[in-house]
């Protein structure tokens, strides 16, 4: 039974969302290297030669670390370690969803498989894949780091083969959709 907080949700809401973990180091994290704002870039691209849809998330190491530390309550956890990268990959798996939108409503999330994660300079890359092709229209939900950094802005670049479509997630954004054909 969750402990009751000393304030109440607005009665016009039917229910309150469950609150999420947060970084007390917010201010510091938000200005890593002279005030860089937190943001992520994910790309969704079909690889014609392997018939696999590749999803790559590019996250700044420091943002990732602050989120990890809070989510796992372990100050020693770092993306330098295999465990840290795996924990981050599992976090991303929860926070990034792609669903079928070809019937103009958000269907069940597609079964993105988690492939792994690796460091690349200042960034950590998290890989997911989907065997086969994307539906004609998709809905995307990208909550990466937004539970911790209110100013987080996430970009999702979806390559249709002919062009790149960009979805931006910030503030109140939940599901966003795009047609691929």
């Amino acid at each position, binding site marked *: 039974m*969750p402990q*009751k*907080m000393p304030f*109440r*949700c607005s*009665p016009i*809401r039917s*229910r309150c*969302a*469950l*609150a*999420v*973990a*947060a970084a*007390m*180091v*917010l*201010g*510091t994290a938000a*200005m*890593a*290297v*002279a*005030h*860089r704002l937190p*943001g992520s*870039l994910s790309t969704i*691209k079909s*690889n014609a030669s*392997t018939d696999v849809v*590749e999803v790559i998330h590019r996250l700044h190491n420091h943002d990732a670390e602050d989120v990890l530390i809070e*989510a796992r309550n372990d*100050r*020693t956890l770092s993306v*330098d370690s*295999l465990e840290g990268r*795996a*924990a981050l990959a599992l976090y991303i798996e929860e926070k990034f969803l792609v669903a079928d939108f070809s019937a103009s409503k958000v269907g069940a999330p597609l079964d993105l498989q*988690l*492939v*792994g*994660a*690796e*460091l690349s300079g*200042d*960034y950590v*890359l998290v890989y997911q*894949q989907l065997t086969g092709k994307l539906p004609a229209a998709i809905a995307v939900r990208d909550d990466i780091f*937004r539970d*911790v950094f*209110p100013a987080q*802005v996430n*970009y999702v*670049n979806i390559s249709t083969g*002919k062009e*790149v479509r*960009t979805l*931006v997630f910030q503030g*109140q954004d*939940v599901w966003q959709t795009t047609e691929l054909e």
Partner: protein
Amino acid sequence: MRFHPLLPAVLLLAATAVSADAIRQTKMDHYDAFRQLEVDLPTPNVYRTASGAPGVQYWQQQADHKIQVTLNEGEQSIRASQTIEYSNNSPDTLRYVWIQLDQNRFRDESIARLTERADEDQLSYADLARHQRFSDVEHGFTIERVVDGRGRDLRYVVVDTMMRIDLAQPIRTGQKTSFGIDWSFNIIEEAIVGGRGGYEHFAESDTYVFFLAQWFPKLAAYTDYGGWKHQQFLGRGEFTQEFGDYEVEITVPADHIVAATGELQNESAVLTAEQRRRLNAARSADKPMFIVTPEEAIANEKDGTTETRTWVFKADNVRDFAWASSRKFIWDAMIHRQEDAEHPEVLAMSFYPQEAEPLWSQYSTHAVVHTMEVYSRFSFPYPYPTAQSVNTWKSGGMEYPMITFNGRRPEPFEADEEDENAADKPERTYSRRTKQGLIGVIIHEIGHIYFPMTVNSDERQWTWMDEGVNSFLQYLAELEWEENFHRYRDHYSVLEQIAEYMTSQNQVPIMTQSDSIMQFGPNGYTKPAASFVVLRETVLGRELFDFAFREYAQRWKFKRPTPADLFRTLEDASGVDLDWFWRGWYYSTDHVDVALTSVREFRISSEDPHIELPLNREQRNEQVPETLGQIRNREEGRTLRVDKFPELKDFYNDNDEFAVSNADRNKYSKLLDDLEPWERAALERAARDDDFVYFIDFENLGGLVTPLPLLITDTDGNEEFMMIPAEIWRLDYRNVTKMLIRDKAIASIELDPRRETADADFANNHFPSKPGQSRLELYKGDTDVRDQMADMLRTLRKRKGGDDATENAVPLQSDPQ
């Protein structure tokens, strides 16, 4: 209007921009990527020349500040009395002045606070703690008194983070005025509230590090290009500043060590004899020396005192002043020597709590000196007597004249439980990334003392002018620290990083006002830094670029450049038209992606039928095999009708279509007769050389025009590198064909083999086309890495089943109403 099938969003931008131009393409969809920028840049005038230099009547204001400030450690507050002497060097008469009150950003009713946005129906612990702090402690300036030079009250109006003071007498050009302000405020706890200064509280030892930035009422800038620069401080867009001389008396608990902008004036009053002796020794030391040792700092933490001491600092010609104070500080210093009459020696210093050890004593001051060595080579000798790095937080960094606040600390060392020697292991350890992160952040922040603390660009308006330029120089300094500095290894250079971002639809051009920038990091830091890398290594070359960049830095040292001054100076000093480069990288959202779409091979014909027709026959026979039925008929010994009835044979049976006829001979002879002698010589030479002629097609998919670096490999395996300048796109920015004449046949061509253009897609850069592996495929190809990760994911998934993942959530419950 410009045609751009890739990025519909860009169409809108381009359409708006183009319709505002005096020059418009109103027929067809031609886009002139090389159109001169002069109609878009501000008109040159007596303040700023067309060559990008300060003009004959260039002016800037001067604001000298004297401040007496007292720190109340117990209440975490400061109180001060200050006077400002303001010199009006502008051609205008001023009836009022504007003062920056940056601390007012934290007031309850500030624009910054009121416009903070909620994120879904979620409340984090951080938000909650911040809210509680704001309701417990009042933040922002309390202005107690504003008086003129004679002590008479002046009328003033506070407008959010700005204050207008109405002067008793207007100040005319060349005149000075002075006024005094008494004020106080409660210092923010940086980790809770978030800001660029404040204090850090170490709960275990109940000790503090104070670091004061944006802490005093400061003259707003008055400029020739924008009048008073009084855009409100919302927290992101930084500062537009005036230069001035500062004298600051800082009263703190007697056991504190103070680091500040400028030089300490009263060593004998605040330092012990031993500290003074060590400081003097450090002034000729080539390696860092302790002035306060780690052991002394730890001992000092334990005591407290009610006594105070006043540290006096002076700083000349600085655009800001910051300071830090703590009884926790370890202090080390060394000397940096340079070729400069004004500052032949610079004292490099670091201040840090014991929590930063052993990392900081090893690297901080060395990184400060390394920055000066590299940056001075690219710009001018370090222009001040001191350069300091202070550890004030876990990560991040901020810059002020002569002093920087930097993050990165080591982590507790976790010994193996079965390790018998665990007791001998260090208390703390750090990763390679933490070490390089610290070196990187110190280079970045000390680098800011050059840009924008000395080359005083307008940070609130043009983030890239200091962050982009500085990130570029930081990159150069990191490359000179050690090889394979983490950020740029694995073929994942700054250019490849930015290429991903530059393909996004929802970008804004670099030339966008700071508070309106989306994706602040890539736009304000990485993209301009990448552009300078391309400019230096590929477009101009090091010699031209380095000369032009140094010219820019020296022209605008202690002055206030605008973007046009930088664009114009780099062209003026390099002698290269770069308008296409600025237009593409700074004024558009295009990206680099050139495809090598087709290569066609030819030989030059001699036109001599006796040579060409047999060659044609040979070629035909190679290309078109004999009909199978004809071969098998011959093998079967089938008799042909023309053999059975030889009278059926005629001229055509004896001569195929490649036989030389009289008509061919006459045609050749007429051709030779009609040729000029030089044309005939060229034809004969070509027949002897027997060269290969290639037509190579390139398609510009990304829109941004770029030089074309090519690696050409012939059939013998010889490689040749060739750089085709960007001007090849000048008549058609989308499609271009290059002709090459070679004495050997080409086996392959690779576009951008050294990865120097920020090309976003290398899959279309090869002839013959080469199936490249994606980053994900490369990762999957490393089976060891992949298997280890798969095992770890399984372990964590299992563990997660019993884990309380919501441990850190602030529990909310809906109201039963």
